[in-house]
Structure formats: structure tokens, C-alpha cells
């Protein structure tokens, strides 16, 4: 019988996940292709080349474990080897910051570290201080919070460094709450800290947390996250904002190119097959990355592919957008042509993730709908109601999908880690 996931995209952003992992090993990192080291996974695009994640979600059959969490969080779990890391916030003003490590095999808590926020913690009620997702190079975990407190721990919970970016730069915050997730590239932690009152992106030394570089950014509130680009073999990081996209060298912060035609402040971009997909209020724009790493060319712009809070997802030749209300739109990645739409049970804040041709779309009410994107009009093939508010994007690793709410962390999928 043919493997239903045989159409799984093996080439993403010009490199496969496994070859990227090999590349990271060569550059000193210790990530494995099955790790999920940051927001939307190894390539920041929400796609996994796993093959054992259940597509019929059933907690009676596939719940590996469910763990209690001590506080709120919109951040995604990240998974390194047999460890799952989650951030939370608690306290009357969400001033208590938590980083917790669970054992992936049985959900037992290995360690927890708590910190007091040194920056502002005010957030709109829908979001919270533990909104950004941590990042890892395979040896260390770096977590940032809405207060812009940034902490680096090794996998055993040893504190490597602490930065109060909100303390150092007190105007780079907003009163809704910051949410930009971290990215580690070229031994540098990329922290995009952008608000109306002050805005910067910093490259922090992974070893010590001190600034390697810090660049000024548009003074506009921005909740998007940086993403990795592989442009002609050159590793770049795309910084999205409502003003457009800037691609920087992670080692230096030098802006390599700037594209001002399209931009967003909430959904992040996604790259696949040498194309960067940029959401904006006008729809979705596809930028062909230049093989020499220079400024990309616009392939198309489509007002019929509209994102909401969720970021776009690219699966092979298809691009998907999900509106806040629950309209899943499928388009042709090459042309931007809209292919089909499917109404899901919304509303949605979390970005879908994908394995093979299956999309996992988790609604704010905690209902995950698994969509078979290979069907002519898309088809919901499974639903799972976890019964709690979920605004966090799920994570995929080693045959399992992880969900987190304000109170719990679930591992669905019983494959051995």
C-alpha cells in the first residue's frame, strides 16, 4: 500500500530538513532533523518530514501524556532530543517567568527555572507575557518573554546568561504585549523587539548574551518572528514588519536587501523552494529569492490568499492561508491562483503545522481539525477537542504532535522518542 504521506515535501527552502540538520552539525550546532527547535520548526515553516504523526487524532488511542503547566502561555513547545521545553508566566501581573523541561517519553518534569520580569508585563487579556517561542541550537535553550527578558539555559537547566532587554531599552515594548519569537543563526540569537515607541533587532552572542550587533528598525508595533532564509546557499534571516521585509546577515546584522512592497505586523512569513511568502493586508506576496543572495523579485501578489493571525504554510506546490474566522484557503505556490477554500470551525490564532499532506489546524477553542490537503477541495479527516483555549501553534517531533494551553501540555502520538 502506498504511504499516504509519500507526497511529503522533502525540499523546503532549497534544502531538506535532514540536510539542513547536517549543515547545522557542521557549523557547530547539534540539532537533529527530528528536533523542533523554534517557532514553526527547524525551517520556521511549520512543516515536518515526520512520517508517524497520527492523522486520526484520538486521545483515547494516541495520548502519550498530559502535563500540568504552572501558568499561561501562547509560546509553542520546542523539542530537542528527548526533551520538551515550554515557557509560562504567572503571578498577578504575569511577572513570574517560567522555563520548564519535560521528558518527552513520559511527560515527567525534569526541571523548572523561574525568573522575575525586569521589563514591563502589561498585555492585552488575550495574549500574555509567555507569548514568544524559545529557540535552541541543540545545546542551549534561549527564551524570551513579552517583558523582553531573555534567558539562556543549557539542556540541564544550568543558567548560561540572562538579559533584561526591557530593562536595557525600556521604550521597546508595547501595551498589548510583545510576541516575536527568537531565532538562532550563525551562533547569534536574533531578537526582534519592535514597537511604536522604540524598535530594534539585536543579535545576541549565544555564549554570553551580550550584543554582537543591534540595528534600528521601523518604529511600528510588530509581532512577527524572524525566519531563516536559504538564498543561493547563503544563510539569511528575514525580518518582516508592516513596512516590508529586510534580509540580514545573522552574523553581522548587515541588511543584505530590503523589500518594501509588502509587509505585515502579525502573521510571519514562510519560505519554501527558494520562495519567500509574505503576508500583508493586501493578501499574500511571493518573492523569488535570488541565487546570489541579492534582492528578490516579486513573483505574484494575490488578494485572494489572505492570512489572519496565523502565518502562511507551504506544502510542496500549494500555499495555505487561514483566516481568523476559519477559512482555509489553498493556492498554487507558483502562481498565487486560488484553488479551493474550506470552512473550518474557528476562530484561529495558531498557525497550522503540516506532516505529509495533512494540515493540523487548532482553533482557539481547542479543537484541532486535521485537513487532508490532497483532496480536491480539502477535507477534514479528523477532529480532536482538547476542551481548553489554545492560541499556541502546535509542534511536531518524532512521531508526535504537541499542544499547549494555559494549563496543560499534551503529547499526542505514541511513537518512541
Amino acid at each position, binding site marked *: 500500500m502506498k504511504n499516504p504521506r509519500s507526497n511529503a515535501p522533502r525540499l523546503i527552502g532549497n534544502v531538506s530538513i535532514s540536510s539542513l540538520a547536517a549543515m547545522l552539525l557542521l557549523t557547530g550546532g547539534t540539532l537533529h532533523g527530528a528536533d523542533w527547535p523554534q517557532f514553526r520548526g527547524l525551517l520556521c515553516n511549520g512543516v515536518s518530514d515526520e512520517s508517524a504523526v497520527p492523522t486520526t487524532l484520538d486521545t483515547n488511542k494516541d495520548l502519550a501524556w498530559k502535563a500540568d503547566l504552572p501558568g499561561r502561555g501562547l509560546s509553542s513547545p520546542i523539542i530537542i532530543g528527548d526533551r520538551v521545553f515550554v515557557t509560562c508566566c504567572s*503571578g*498577578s*501581573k504575569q511577572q513570574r517567568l517560567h522555563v520548564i523541561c519535560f521528558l518527552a517519553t513520559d511527560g515527567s518534569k525534569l*526541571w*523548572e*527555572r*523561574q*525568573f*522575575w520580569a*525586569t521589563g*514591563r508585563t*502589561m498585555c*492585552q487579556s488575550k495574549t500574555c507575557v509567555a507569548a514568544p517561542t524559545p529557540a535552541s541550537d541543540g545545546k542551549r535553550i534561549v527564551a524570551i518573554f513579552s517583558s523582553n*527578558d531573555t*534567558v539562556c539555559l543549557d539542556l540541564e*537547566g*544550568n*543558567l*548560561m*546568561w*540572562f*538579559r*533584561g532587554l526591557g*530593562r*536595557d531599552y*525600556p*521604550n521597546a515594548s*508595547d*501595551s*498589548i504585549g510583545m510576541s516575536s519569537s527568537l531565532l538562532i543563526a550563525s551562533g547569534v540569537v536574533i531578537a526582534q523587539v519592535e*514597537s*511604536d*515607541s522604540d524598535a530594534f533587532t539585536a543579535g*545576541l*552572542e549565544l*555564549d*554570553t*548574551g*551580550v*550584543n554582537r550587533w543591534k540595528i534600528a528598525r521601523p*518604529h511600528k*508595533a510588530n509581532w512577527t518572528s524572524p525566519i531563516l532564509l536559504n538564498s543561493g546557499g547563503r544563510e539569511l534571516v528575514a525580518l518582516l514588519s508592516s513596512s516590508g521585509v529586510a534580509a540580514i546577515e545573522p552574523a553581522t546584522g548587515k541588511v543584505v536587501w530590503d523589500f518594501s512592497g509588502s509587509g505585515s505586523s502579525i502573521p510571519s512569513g514562510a519560505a519554501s523552494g527558494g520562495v519567500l511568502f509574505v503576508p500583508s493586508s493586501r493578501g499574500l506576496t511571493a518573492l523569488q529569492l535570488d541565487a546570489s543572495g541579492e534582492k528578490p523579485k516579486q513573483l505574484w501578489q494575490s488578494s485572494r490568499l489572505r492570512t489572519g493571525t496565523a502565518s502562511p504554510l507551504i506544502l510542496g506546490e500549494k500555499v495555505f492561508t487561514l483566516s481568523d474566522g476559519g477559512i482555509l484557503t489553498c493556492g498554487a505556490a507558483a502562481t498565487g491562483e486560488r484553488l479551493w477554500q474550506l470552512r473550518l470551525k474557528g476562530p484561529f490564532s495558531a498557525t497550522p503545522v503540516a506532516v505529509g499532506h495533512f494540515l493540523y489546524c487548532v482553533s482557539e477553542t481547542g479543537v484541532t481539525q486535521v485537513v487532508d490537503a490532497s483532496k480536491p477541495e480539502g477535507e477534514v479527516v479528523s477532529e480532536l477537542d482538547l476542551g481548553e483555549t489554545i492560541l499556541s501553534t502546535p509542534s511536531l517531533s518524532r512521531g508526535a504532535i504537541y499542544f499547549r494551553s494555559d494549563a496543560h501540555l499534551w503529547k499526542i502520538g505514541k511513537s518512541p522518542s
Partner: protein
Amino acid sequence: MIGHFARILVIFGLIGGALAGQPQEIADSIRAIRSVGPEGRGNAAAAAAWKKLAAGDATILMPILEGMDDANDLALNWLRAAVDSVTGRVLGAGGSLPLHDLGMFLLDTRHNPRARRLDFELLTRIDAATADKLLAGMLNDPSTEIRYDAVQKVIHQAGQSLAASNKVGATLLFQQALNSARDARQIDDIAQQLGKLGQPVDTLKLFGFLTEWKIIGPFDNRGRKGFDAVYPPEQKIDLAAEYEGNAGKVKWRDYVVTQKYGKVDMNQPYGKLKDVTAYAMADFFSDRAQSVELRLGGKNSWKVWLNSNLLFGRDEYHFNSEIDQYPMPAQLQAGRNTILVKVCQNEQTEEWTVEWDFQLRVTDALGTPILSTATGRDTSTSIERP
């Protein structure tokens, strides 16, 4: 600082073998961690020192907690993480923590409030019943977190009285909670409960918002340039002066706050204008020089000066606001102090962008209102807080 480390060394002496014969190394480690500063300064040395502390056994906890006294907020986080590491390992291995020492540390309110809060949480892990009983006596604790929990405990008891139809009992308990509460949201919740029980609370007085202002405006803020523009009130406060404003001559006028959360609402005197800037000035009299916090709430762009010194400013419009949104440490001088607030309104026309206001109060670090002692000021507008 010397005295502080001497105290640590005394503790090392008292607990003898707890430090495996290396008290100086531990003291040096704590010192290295306490040296961390802005922009990652001292992180590398602190990381090496942290490993030494985190490798200790339970007897190292008290020296670390002591080491938190007078530490900056960055160092506090390093030290608390070391405590987390030690306690996680000790308790995970079935070991015990020094209950008596932790209890005595908690009861000594001279210690760092955050160290005592951490201590309280350790105590709760190993003897929750005792910790809970101690909490009942901590309604006026200098730790905001401990005090918050103690007040919540009384609020819970008030709720139980209410559920048992004991309204008088509930009222007394809510009032007790209100007397000790310093968290703005907690205060507001209690006030609402008392209101439902027929005991309305004057929040304007309770929070101690500044109510007597002189205001002047509007000035230009087209293109949101008013935030950086320097208009005459920033250069000199002359209450008799008249200036060229946004639409003709402007001069200072009285403004008395009546809104229950202390809002200085510029829409009231000037109308619902857009692209404008205004100033509000208040005199605040202090009987002595003292450290305070000026706490501002508002969703418009603003700047605050105390005695002509800029404290802080935010160039952000219509995101969110709450009481005590921006606490600004400040130093009052004895006698008259002048507080100047610039508040800007932008060009947005959505329904949720109408507000053009701010609220401001002066408090201690805990949030207790500090009131102006001005002669002639109606001090009856304040409520005494314990």
C-alpha cells in the same frame, strides 16, 4: 557592601561544613553574580559562578538568599535560578530543606522582598500548612507578592462569608483586604465587592490620584511631531503667560479631576480634537526629600518631567492603559515639586482612539499613595492607608 559580605561570612561560619570548606569561593561566586549589569555586563563571570552555587547542597540556600539582599534585579534572577537548581535537585533526591532557617529568614522583613518571597515558596513546598498560617499574618508585608497572596486569602474568606449570607462579616473582611491591598487591580476588585455590599469606595481618594492641575493647549501634533516638539511650557512654566497654540492663543487654566480613576481628560476642556498636544502641571509638596514613584496610566503619547527633569516618555498611541501602567522612580525634594505632563493625541479616527487623557499618582515602591502636603490643599480628599 563590606558589611553585607561580612554577614554572609558569619553565616558561613555558623553553618560550618555546609560550604565544604570553601566559604570564600562561595562568597566570591555571589559577588560575581551581584556584579552583573546592563547589556549583559558580567554574564560570563556570573555563569561560571552560578555553576559553583548550583552545585551546592541544601546548606547553601541561606547564603544565597542572604546574597540577594540589595542585589539588582538581574542578579536576583541569577541567584533565584541557583536556588531553583539546588532545591530541585535536593528535593528530587528525597533530601530536606532547612525549614527553621527558611522560616526565620521569611520573618525577618529586612531581607530583600523577592528573596523572602522565594523563601516563602520554598517553605510552602516543604510545609504548606505552616506557610499558610504565616501568610495570614503578612497582610502588610513589604513583599508585593506575599502581600498580594495574603490579601487574596482574606478576599477568599470574605467570599466565604458572603456565600454564608454573612454580609457584615464579608464587608469587614473586604475592608480589611482593602486596607492592605497595594495591587491596583486587586484594589479595584475589592472596591467593586464593597460597592455591591452597599459600601461604595471613593477610588479617586483611595488611589490618591493627583486631582488639581493647571492645563494648557492645544498645540500642534500633526504628523505626530508634537512628541518631540518643544513647546514653551517645557522651557519654562509661567502660569501667567499666553502662547500661540494650535488654533490661536492659549493660556493655563484650572482643571480639577472628578473621574473616579483620576483621569485628566483633555477632551473635556478642548473637545475631541485630533493631531494635538496639551500639557498639565501640578505642584506636589513633600515634607522631606524622599524616593517615590510617579505612576502614570494612559494610552496616548506622553512625557513626564519632575522639577524640569524628564523622567520618561512614551511615543505610543491607543494600545492599552491601566492604573500604574508606567511606574517611574523619582526623587522628591523637600517642599514644592513641579510635575509636568505632556499628553498627545494623534490622527486616528476609530472609535477606540477618542481618549486623550492620563492619570497620575505618587506612591512608594510598594504602591502606597503618597499625598501632597500642600498648605491649602484639601487633605480630606485622601484616605489614610496603613
